[in-house]
C-alpha cells in the first residue's frame, strides 16, 4: 500500500518530448487506469514510475519518498508486461519465485510462498511446466503471480490483456479486479481499451499527446468529458460531434443548415462551438416531429441487444444507439430528438469543455 505522487514529470527522447509535464496523485490502495490512444505517453509514464525509463524532469514519489534515482528493485513496484516476459527456460514455479531467489529468500520459505501464490491463481497443477507449454491465459496468470509474490507496494500493468482473445480478456479483467480487492495494493493499469478502463478503474486518467486530459471516476469521465478528445475517445460508438455557432435563437449547426432552440446560458452570440451528443442519448421519432432533427438512415448495425443506426445529417455522420426493435430501412427519413441536458459543448478553438448546463447534470453516483 502506497500513494504515488507525480509532479511536473516530463520525458524527452533526444530532442522530442513525449510527456509534457504530468501532475497526478494516486491514493493508497486505489486502482488507477491510464487510458489513451497509442503513442500518447501512457506506457512511458508507467515505465517512469517503474524505474525502467529515466525521468527527464519533475519528480515521482512513492509513499512521499522521491524515487527518481532509485533502481526498479528499490521502488517496491511489480510489473506485469504486455507480452508477459516470462523466462522461457524456467518452469512456472521458478518464474514466480525468481525475485525471491535473487533476494536470497531460503528455499523452504520460497516454496511455501510460491505454493500460496499458485493457489490464489489456480496454477498449482502447472508449477512444473515451462511457459512454452502454457496457454495465453495461463501465461498471463504466471506473470501476475510473479508480480504478486513480492508483495509489492505498487502493481503496474502495461496493457496486460491486449494479447488475449476477447473471452479470456473479460475473464482476466474480473480476475484482476478481484485480485485487487484481495490485495488492495495501489495499482496502475495502462490500456488503450476503453471498456477495460471503464470496468477496472476506481479512477481514470485520460491521456492524449503526452498530456493528461482528464482525471476522474469512469462515470464522471463518461458523463462530463473535460475535452472534445475525451468525449470522442471514451464511449462506443463515439460521441456525435456537430460544429455550430451560437445565435440569438439558440444554435445554428452545420454551417446554418440546422437550427436548435436551446438556451445559450453563458455563451456569447457568434462563438463557435462543437456540440456533442452521445448516441445513447438520442431518441428516434417519426420524421416531421416538431423540434426534431431530420436525417436519412445510412446503415443499421445489429448488436443483438440493440442496434446502432448510422444516419446522415446533411453530410455529417451521426449515430444513434437504440434498444427498441426498430429496423429503419437505409435511405428512409427519421427524426432525431434529445434532451437539452444531454448536450455537451466544447470550444471549437481549444477543444475544452464549456459548462453550459452545469446545474442540470446530476453528479454521478459512485
Amino acid at each position: 500500500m502506497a500513494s504515488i505522487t507525480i509532479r511536473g514529470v516530463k520525458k524527452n527522447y533526444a530532442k522530442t518530448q513525449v510527456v509534457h509535464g504530468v501532475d497526478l496523485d494516486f491514493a493508497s490502495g486505489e486502482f488507477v487506469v491510464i487510458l489513451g490512444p497509442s503513442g500518447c505517453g501512457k506506457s512511458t509514464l508507467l515505465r517512469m514510475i517503474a524505474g525502467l525509463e529515466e525521468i527527464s524532469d519533475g519528480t515521482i514519489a512513492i509513499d512521499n519518498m522521491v524515487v527518481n534515482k532509485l533502481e526498479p528493485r528499490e521502488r517496491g513496484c511489480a510489473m506485469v508486461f504486455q507480452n508477459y516476459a516470462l523466462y522461457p527456460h524456467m518452469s512456472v514455479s521458478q518464474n514466480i519465485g525468481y525475485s525471491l531467489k535473487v533476494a536470497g529468500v531460503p528455499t523452504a520459505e520460497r516454496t511455501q510462498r510460491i505454493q500460496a501464490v499458485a493457489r490464489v491463481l489456480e496454477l498449482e497443477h502447472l508449477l512444473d511446466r515451462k511457459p512454452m507449454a502454457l496457454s495465453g491465459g495461463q501465461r498471463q496468470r504466471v506473470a501476475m503471480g510473479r508480480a504478486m509474490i513480492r508483495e509489492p507496494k505498487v502493481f503496474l500493468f502495461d496493457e496486460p490483456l491486449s494479447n488475449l482473445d476477447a473471452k479470456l480478456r473479460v475473464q482476466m479483467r474480473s480476475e484482476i479486479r478481484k485480485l485487487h480487492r484481495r490485495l488492495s495494493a495501489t495499482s496502475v493499469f495502462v490500456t488503450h481499451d476503453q471498456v477495460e478502463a471503464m470496468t477496472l478503474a476506481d479512477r481514470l486518467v485520460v491521456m492524449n499527446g503526452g498530456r493528461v486530459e482528464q482525471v476522474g471516476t469512469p462515470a464522471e469521465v463518461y458523463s462530463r468529458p473535460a475535452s472534445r478528445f475525451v468525449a470522442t475517445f471514451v464511449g462506443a460508438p463515439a460521441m456525435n460531434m456537430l460544429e455550430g455557432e451560437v445565435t440569438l435563437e439558440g444554435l445554428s449547426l452545420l454551417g446554418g443548415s440546422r437550427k436548435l432552440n436551446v438556451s445559450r446560458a453563458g455563451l456569447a452570440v457568434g462563438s463557435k462551438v462543437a456540440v456533442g451528443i452521445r448516441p445513447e442519448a438520442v431518441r428516434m421519432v417519426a420524421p416531421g416531429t416538431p423540434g426534431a432533427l431530420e436525417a436519412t438512415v445510412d446503415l443499421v448495425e445489429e448488436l443483438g441487444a440493440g442496434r446502432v443506426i448510422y444516419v446522415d445529417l446533411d453530410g455529417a455522420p451521426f449515430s444513434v444507439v437504440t434498444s427498441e426493435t426498430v429496423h429503419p430501412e437505409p435511405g428512409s427519413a427519421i427524426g432525431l430528438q434529445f434532451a437539452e441536458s444531454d448536450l455537451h459543448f466544447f470550444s471549437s478553438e481549444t477543444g475544452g469543455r464549456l459548462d453550459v448546463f452545469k446545474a442540470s447534470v446530476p453528479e454521478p453516483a459512485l
Partner: protein
Amino acid sequence: MVERTPILNFFTHLILFAGFVFCVAPFVIVAIAASHNLKDVNDVPMSLLPGSDFWVNIKTAWTTADLGPKLLNSFIMAFGVAAGKVIISALTAFSIVYFRYPGRMLMFWLIFITLMLPLEVRIVPTYAVVANVLEPYQAILDLTGISWLIQKISGVQVQLSLGLLNSYSGLILPLVATATGTFLYRQFFLTVPDELTEAARMDGAGAMRFFVDILLPLSRNNMAALGTIMFLWAWNQYLWPLLITTDQSHAMAVTELKQLIPNVGGAPEWHIAMAGTLIIMLPPLVVVVLMQRWFVRGLIATEK
C-alpha cells in the same frame, strides 16, 4: 518453393547421393589404404578392396608416433580454446549489447578489426609476445627510464620475463583472443526481447545475475554451436602449435602426423600414415556427432 512429385523427389535424392559420394570417397580411400600392407598400398593403381591389416596398422601408427599423449595435448588445447572462446565471446557481446558506456563503439570496432587480423597475419608479433608476455612493459620501463632509475636507486636490474612457449596457456590464449564468437552472440542477444531484461530488472536481478541466470541458459544452443566450431578449428590448428611447441611433451596430434609421413629415402609406409590420419580424425568426428543436434539449432533458429 516446396514441390513434391515422385520424379522431382528421385532427382533431388540422386543429387544428394552424388554429393554424399563425392564427400565421402576420400575418407573411404583413406580407410582402405589404412587396411593394406606395405606392398598393396604402393600398387598402382591401389586396390579398392580392403586389405586385412587394418588393426595392425592402427597399432603401429599409435606406437610409432606416440599418439596417446599427443591426442591428450590436442584435446586439452582444443577444449581450452573452445571454452575460452565461449566465455570471452559471451562476455564481450554482453558488454556491447547491454551497456551504454563511453567508447562502446570504439570497443565494438576494435573487436571487429580482430576479424580482419587472423593469427596468420600477426604471427610474428604474437610469437614475440608469447615468448615474453611482459616484453611490452619492459620496453615501456626502459624507454621512460624507469628501469634505469630503479637500478640507480636500489641496484636491482628490472628484467620482466614471463615466457609462454611450450605451455598450454601459450597454445591456447592467442587462439582465444579473436572476435568470431562475439558476433554470433551479439546477433543472438539482439533477438532477446527487451521485456525479459526489464522483467529481470523488476525482479531485482543485477547485470551479472541477469547474464548468468537468464542470458546464458537462453544461449546454450549458441554455446554448443560456437564450442563445436571452435573445437574443430583449434584441433586442426597447424601453424601455431608448430611454431611454439619445440618440446615433445607439448606436441599436438595434428602437427605430429608428419612423423608418420614417409621421408624421402624411407620406406613408403603410406598405410601407416593413413591409419594415423584416421585416428586423429576421430575425436572431432565424435564431437560433431554428439553436438550436432544443438549445433544446428544454435546456428539456424532462435528458440522461442
